[in-house]
């Protein structure tokens, strides 16, 4: 191409493609140099200071105490098993936290936009308070509140089956019997049927405009199938917590949500929901006001215009930052060590007393990364489904 400035063609140093390549190569070299610098430094120091490193310890008995676990744990189990127990504790806090924080966040986010002055101001105060206090302080705050509850011998008892005290919340819990798996499969089929029914009825409602109650129908199907399964297979046995003999009067059986877990869950949910509320608000406000007006002029009531018009469009804006809040919640759960919940970081810190610290920190990092990537993957798939087709 002839240019007025450069009759002989564009010189190399003005060639955009060339310059971009040079910049790319230089940045690549810098990044590689920094990373390899780190790696060599660590490798050298490990050798110089004779810091132990390796993974052979994973088969040995961990011999460490872990207070609560999703699967049975005994100190004679291996390090690998102990690490898995801790990872599951983190998963438990993370999954429950994500579900509850989302629910609470949506409610508060919508309240923030409510035309009710009191409600929207309360939501504003909630958001500004909990978003602006460091999470560790909040966790200790909730933990100290739970410590103020009466102890396990003097705590509250409901229906002789639910116990609330500063050691935690004890509730009846089902343990699986022989018929568990057939029942589980039947229930899964029921859930699938409910999803299909929801879609069919939902489409009918949109096409014909007749109320077809898709949500209610879905829940009824799940409920009926589950109950039928329970009657046929007797898959579960309900175990009620009971007081042990002896001086301490601790409770045994059923499920226990320890005080530490409670404090962690409340802290994570309250803190994260404040962020989610703002994301939800931003998402709804990002939908053009004309959309609401159009929906209303079509005759949709407030609920339906939210459900069919506003929310589907708001979701596109909400999902990406929401995923990053889920990742934050998962990573924030590592503060649990401060309040005595045996999460991944807490347990692996205990393990480093005997096992090599560098290996364990590496494993912890990989585990968090895996969890975060999983959330990202699920979120991105969902994002791909909900976004407008044809827009990059």
């Amino acid at each position, binding site marked *: 191409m002839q240019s007025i400035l450069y009759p002989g063609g564009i010189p190399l*140093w*003005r060639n*955009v493609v060339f*310059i*971009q390549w*040079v*910049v790319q190569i230089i940045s690549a070299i810098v990044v590689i140099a920094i990373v390899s610098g780190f790696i060599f430094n660590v490798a050298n120091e490990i050798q*110089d*200071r*004779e*810091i*132990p490193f390796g993974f052979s310890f994973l088969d040995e008995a961990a*011999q*460490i*105490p*872990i*207070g*609560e676990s999703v699967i049975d744990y005994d*100190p*004679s189990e291996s390090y690998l098993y102990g690490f898995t127990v801790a990872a599951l504790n983190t998963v438990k806090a993370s999954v429950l936290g994500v579900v509850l924080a989302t629910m609470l966040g949506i409610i508060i986010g919508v309240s923030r936009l409510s035309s009710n002055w009191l409600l929207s101001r309360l939501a504003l105060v909630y958001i500004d308070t909990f978003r602006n206090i460091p999470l560790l302080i909040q966790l*200790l705050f909730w*933990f*100290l509140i739970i*410590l*103020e509850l*009466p*102890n*396990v011998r003097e705590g509250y008892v409901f229906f002789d089956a639910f116990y609330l005290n*500063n*050691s935690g919340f004890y509730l009846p819990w089902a343990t699986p019997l022989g018929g568990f798996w057939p029942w589980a499969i039947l229930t899964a089929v029921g859930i699938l049927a409910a999803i299909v029914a929801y879609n069919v009825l939902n489409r009918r409602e949109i096409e014909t405009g007749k109320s077809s109650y898709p949500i209610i129908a879905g829940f009824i199907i799940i409920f009926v199938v589950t109950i039928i399964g329970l009657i046929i297979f007797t898959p579960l046995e309900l175990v009620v917590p009971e007081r*042990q003999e*002896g*001086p*301490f009067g*601790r409770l045994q059986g059923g499920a226990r949500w*320890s*005080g*530490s877990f409670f404090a962690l869950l409340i802290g994570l949910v309250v803190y994260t929901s404040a962020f989610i509320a703002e994301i939800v608000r931003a998402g709804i406000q990002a939908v053009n006001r004309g959309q609401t007006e159009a929906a209303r002029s079509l005759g949709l009531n407030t609920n339906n215009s939210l459900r069919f018009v506003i929310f589907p469009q708001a979701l596109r804006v909400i999902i990406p930052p929401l995923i990053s809040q889920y990742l934050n919640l998962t990573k924030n759960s590592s503060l649990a*060590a*401060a*309040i*005595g919940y*045996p999460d991944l970081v*807490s347990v692996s*810190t*205990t393990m*480093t*007393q*005997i096992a090599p*610290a560098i290996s364990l920190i590496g494993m912890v990092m990989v585990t968090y990364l895996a969890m975060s990537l999983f959330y990202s993957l699920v979120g991105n798939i969902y994002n791909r489904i909900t*976004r*407008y087709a044809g*827009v*990059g």
Partner: protein
Amino acid sequence: MTETTQPNHAMKHALATILTLTAATILFTACTSDSGANEIAVERAQSTAEAAIIAHNDAISERDAAIQRADQAEKSANRLAVIKERGDVVCSTGNDTPGFHSLDASGQSVGFDVDLCRAVAAAVLGDADAVEFRFTDLVERGPALQSGEIDLMNLTTTWTSTRDVAWGNFAPVMFYDGQGFMATKASGVTSALQLGGAAVCVTAGTTTELNLADYFRQNNLGYSPTVFEQSDVAFDSYTAGQCDAFTTDRSALASLLTTLPNPDEHLILPEIVYEEPLTPVIPHGDEAWFDVVKIVMAGIIYAEAYGIDSTNVDVMAAGDNVKAKRLLGSEGDFGQEALGLEKTFMQDVIKQVGNYGEIYERNLGTDGIGLPRKGRNDLWINGGQIYAAPLR
């Protein structure tokens, strides 16, 4: 959607343009000599620039060499010289266990551990206050020693075989401790063997945490552990009744008992669950510095045995006790100069910090948290186990 994607594109574009322009400017200025108009000036400028670059490079390589020499000095077994040059001893300790290490009303570090740091500083630099205290979490003790960033650690550290291999060199035992349990009198428990079914609070990153698991497993007792990162939260959790028992070194239990508003309601159970010999620790890799610390510790032990205390140093130095005169450096020699210390360094230590008995009484004994000294922590001449290599 196109509206929302545009800013992103625009930003990328702007960034690319800025980068390209920067790169282009650099290339352009480098190539202006092509124009031929100012060739001589350019050449001169170039030679000046080259000279500047050479000078700069020389300065850099000189600085690098200096850094390397400093590194060598730090690494190659001459910590004593580094400390003398720096003018203070970096000593890792804590601030949360009265008697061993805590802060007094004026914010000064006081305690048994702190005095041992001060004794080393007095020996090496002649000034007991030439100490830089680093407050270290219990879980960070291993990394702090392995990195070699501290000269000495006095942090109620139990000497164990794994730690000896991985952490550093352990000096003579300065305090014989044992792990014990504290429980409320109201529970009616009088022996650790009655703790079956109890909830036990413990601090993370300690041998007590591991011994706890061992003890209950050994005795076939069920229990539920709660592990906290910080000992004060763990102890709060016990006093609030979330745990039925609290476990740590028995001396620390006694010390914590003094902080309670109602010490009469708690009981330290008689069982000693595990041996906990507490010693100063020195990072690996410097035998001479390790020897210095060992011999300072031996010095304060023998000073007590010979009847030298902070009030009579000058009298003893001029007196007729041959052993005392050798210890104080007024006659004979026990290898002070070979270690790289002043011949009379023990005079500084005893005058400024005191002998073992004085340090004990001031912090742990009658003037401190009231731990009776009889038993293992008495001098060997009184039937105890406090003993060190003879100074000859």
